[in-house]
């Protein structure tokens, strides 16, 4: 499971946790997140998320 950081507000999307408030189940990989999903904190687009290198 990977983590992705929003380039606008630094919110972290953790694939293990998903984004249940937006209907994204835990375990959802970023590539499976719908393209119209937005950052829950600032509203940035999915494309604004960058992979956090471990």
């Amino acid at each position, binding site marked *: 499971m990977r983590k992705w950081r929003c380039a606008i*507000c630094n919110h972290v999307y953790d694939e293990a946790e998903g984004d249940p408030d937006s209907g994204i189940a835990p375990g959802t990989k970023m590539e499976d997140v719908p393209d119209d999903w937005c950052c829950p904190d600032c509203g*940035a687009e999915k494309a604004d998320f960058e992979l956090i290198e471990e």
Partner: protein
Amino acid sequence: MATHPMDDIPVRRLRFKLDEDGAEESHHPIWSRSCPDFSMIINALGIHVPYFERFLVEVMRKYRGELSDPKLEKDVHALMGQEAFHAFNFVGWTKAMAHYYPGLTKLDDEAREYFEHALATRDKKFQIGFTAGYETFTFLGGMIVLDRYEEFMADADPKIRALWVWHQVEEVEHGAVAFDFYKAFYPKAEWYRRWMVVYAFGHILGQTFKAYAAMVRGEGYYRKPLRALRAWRFFLSFGWDLAYAAFPVLRRKYHPRNHPKCNEEQNRVAVAWREHISRGADPLSLTDGDVEQMLERV
């Protein structure tokens, strides 16, 4: 009846792309021909404000789960969105300006480090109080700039003018949220709130002074002492206007929604800009023709 500018805060996901290659050649830091000294002071503010905005987003993210008022939760969410996009765009503008003023890179680093340190080491009350204190001045600054639009921006670079009009309009829109956030946690700590207003003013003035000095030097104004004197007189005058506008903030019954600068009459430029954007106009540029057209409608 016109709605209050602080109702239903929208998040406008704008990207000015000022950190892209070539932007520094297209947009000179002295972007206002109407008032070059205004360009410098607002640019100087724009060095440290983005890092404060990121600090604010992190503080709100850290403590918003403790809120119980759904309206405030909604406003906090919108505030975080607006501030995150401001910071993203203004860090880009600083990068573009650093081509002209090499000293800015060091100030940019210092501003980032200051807020990262405050986030890592200061307690909850300071973080929330400082956020409210600092936001007092971004809100008041927004009102002052919009009220003096003609003097400051009538003849200006369309893109940088659009950047600042957007920023100032949104600073007014969310001008009460950090105050309400503080009140939700510390409803009775009025003296601490006032102290944070004074403390934040000192911080803003100090940081802006350093950046402004780098710009006055960068423009070569010290080779013409009268020009340098005029620039510093403008700095003092703007600083005084900001401080004077903050006096009502120190009252016990103060609330940003009731600040005389906000509630007596909505700013014409702000109203016109919102209308302009809602019609689908390009928010990334404000040519003289755009401004003329949008002001004609209100």
